């Protein structure tokens, strides 16, 4: 019977150590790697940290998309109706990237106020509006109800 107790003791200690270690890992990883969502208005109000990985979302301002000739660099403005942010991105935009379309960009805010994106996300659906963008637009009073809750179809990835 003593050995059964001993077995239980080392089992329980192993589980406690493992769970403690995993919790510590998870907490540190969360602290360092959580990506907050900020709207262009948040950024204008200085609520976003410079240099940290964040997500911003809004509508691509019409006429703002500029491609540098002979380079893969693209710049455009994202707006939530209240404020807008200049975004610079080097790479292939998602297939459904259009002007006046809601997109989310992940990247870092630069000291000059522009946003250097490492990733631009637009869902594969015409009528889809990223929920964060919808919320940001609602907040700034720029929201049209009719393009809202469409686009739940075909969310595969």
């Amino acid at each position, binding site marked *: 019977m003593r050995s059964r107790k001993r077995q239980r003791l080392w089992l329980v200690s192993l589980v406690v150590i493992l769970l403690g270690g*995993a919790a510590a*890992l998870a907490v*540190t990883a969360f602290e360092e790697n959580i990506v907050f969502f900020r709207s262009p208005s948040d950024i204008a109000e200085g609520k976003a940290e410079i240099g940290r990985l964040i997500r911003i979302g809004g509508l691509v301002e019409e006429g703002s998309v500029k491609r540098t000739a002979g*380079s893969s660099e693209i710049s455009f403005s994202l707006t939530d109706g209240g404020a807008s942010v200049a975004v610079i991105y*080097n790479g292939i*935009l998602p297939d459904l990237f259009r002007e006046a379309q809601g997109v989310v960009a992940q990247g870092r805010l630069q000291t000059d106020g522009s946003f250097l994106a490492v990733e631009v996300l637009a869902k594969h*659906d*015409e009528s889809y509006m990223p929920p964060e963008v919808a919320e940001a637009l609602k907040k700034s009073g720029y929201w049209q109800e009719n393009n809202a809750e469409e686009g*739940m179809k075909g*969310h595969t990835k």
Partner: protein
Amino acid sequence: MIAEIGHFALIAAFVLAAVQMSFPLYGAHRGDIGLMDLAKTTALAQFALVLLSFAALVNAFVTSDFSVLNVIQNSHSDKPLLYKISGAWGNHEGSLLLWVLILTLFGAMVASFGRNLPPQLRARTLAIQGMIAFGFIAFMLFTSNPFERVLVPPANGQGLNPLLQDPGLAFHPPFLYFGYVGLSISFSFAVAALIEGKVDAAWARWVRPWTLAAWCGLSVGIGLGSWWAYYELGWGGFWFWDPVENASFIPWLFATALLHSAIVVEKRDALKSWTILLAILAFSMSLLGTFLVRSGVLTSVHAFATDPERGVFILLLLVIAIGGSLTLFAIRAPSLQPGGLFRPISREGGLLLNNLFLSVAALTVLLGTLYPLFLDVLEAGKVSVGPPYFNATFGPLMVPILAAMVVGPLLSWKRGDILSALSTLWFAGTVALAAIAITLIYSGVDGILPAIGVGAAAWIIIGSCMELAERVKLFQSSAADTWRRLRQTPRSVYGMTIAHLGVGVLLAGVIGTTAFKTESVQNMKIGQSVAVSNYTFTLDNVVSLQGPNYVAERAVFVITEGDSLIASVNAERRRYPVEQDMTTEAGIHTTWLADLYAVIGEGSRSAGWTTRLYKNPLTPWIWFGTIIMAIGGLVSLSDRRLRIGAPSNSRKKAVSSRPIPAGAQ
């Protein structure tokens, strides 16, 4: 008319599920053989009815019956036949029907192959299956009917999301669901055992093949999904730690743990309540995954609120299934007989280590997946949890398992000798350490984790082979003796060696792709060349072409290494006029050691095109590794002792050790 037959068949299956979940359970309680055997009949009939219903839906898609709403929303008469068929499960309602079809298929398999099962265990297992089927068919009939008609059929349909029009994704859901839903059998067995209050070696022997089959399906399904994401999304990656991917990965981790702990129950009669708990958790995570993907909460908790009917229904099913089974577990587990003792350093100890680390790793993935939802519900801000979190938690947690998985099989049961096990593996250990050192010194890659990964891959691949060599005394004994030992080694052992080898190959692929890839993004005009690592990509031409239901812009890249021509690959951007959607098709040339990968973006002849070029070292090994793992599972499944209709000698033993106590409980 045929659609109505499908609908009625589904209703009939619903009624049968109600019968199956009640009478046999009562029969098992009373020891009434007639009532218990009812489960067999209903399970088979239910499968036949759901199959008929599924056939009716596929028929509606193939014949483009646009009086069915589901067909209108997800099909088009111009679509190739394969995608008309796969369109049947490429949508919410149809995929649920596939889910239920596989559920009833497993029920029918238990009914027809489980002749050796004690009648009570079989009746109870099938009754639990009946409950799950009842819940899901109700969900379909009341909230997501695939056969809903429209009064005025339109001339044509809206088409299927072009991303889904792909061979990889056509077969991804059936495999994935085979795995997801296959775990329901382990769950039902576990709950039935809890009702009986008895878990023994025979129980583990019945559960293992089902878990193994489900695990193989899940592995292939996840692999197909990852392969699809790799060539179709054009980001050059194979795994994004996307919530939908995690939803399938978490059950896989628990199923892997379950496979290993069931061995301990079978061989040593230990870890019984833990194994039961794993069986419950594995299927619960499948249900949670179904909820996450099907309710819309992942896109936004607000989307969930706008269509609450479906979400609340699945959430309710989730609460009943998980809450009910865990409550039963809490009541019954303490009364399970504790099994054999073992020392920390032993085969059991090794398997337990595997279990604990896999489960904790699964929990950290679950935490990262649900965390943004929690914050959103609490209105505490919008966040996303990306790959860095998962790499920082999941990666370190995998290191001990990967190190231990080679040593474990060399330890003996009860009390093992780790020094002798390690001395057997001296060669693998030396190579692994050398690989780590070389990677750290020469590769110039940041961080120690990639180097450890390279070492672990070498350790597992060489160590697994050495373990088998040791077992058959290769070069230590005569060739005839080795041959005899080779023939006498059970298939389950070969299965293990193959599956472990697969893990090593997969790991090498993952490390190669994530830590050592070369990426280049630029603007290219026709004739221009770009160097990527030791290869040169030249944009040879860009042409327009017409597909069956799309138009494409195709870029032809010629790849050279030094002066020699390696390959020419085609990268496409396809436009689907019906769906008003675009897709990207990456151009990939694969050698055994690397993938050369090209994607084309927007552009024109005068301005040039944006291109993304990659050299992804060892990426093909990810798919090879997955296939090798699944083959290992199948080889193990073919072991005589694990065959679904368990062998006759164990049947005699099992039956005699489980007399039917009339009215006992």
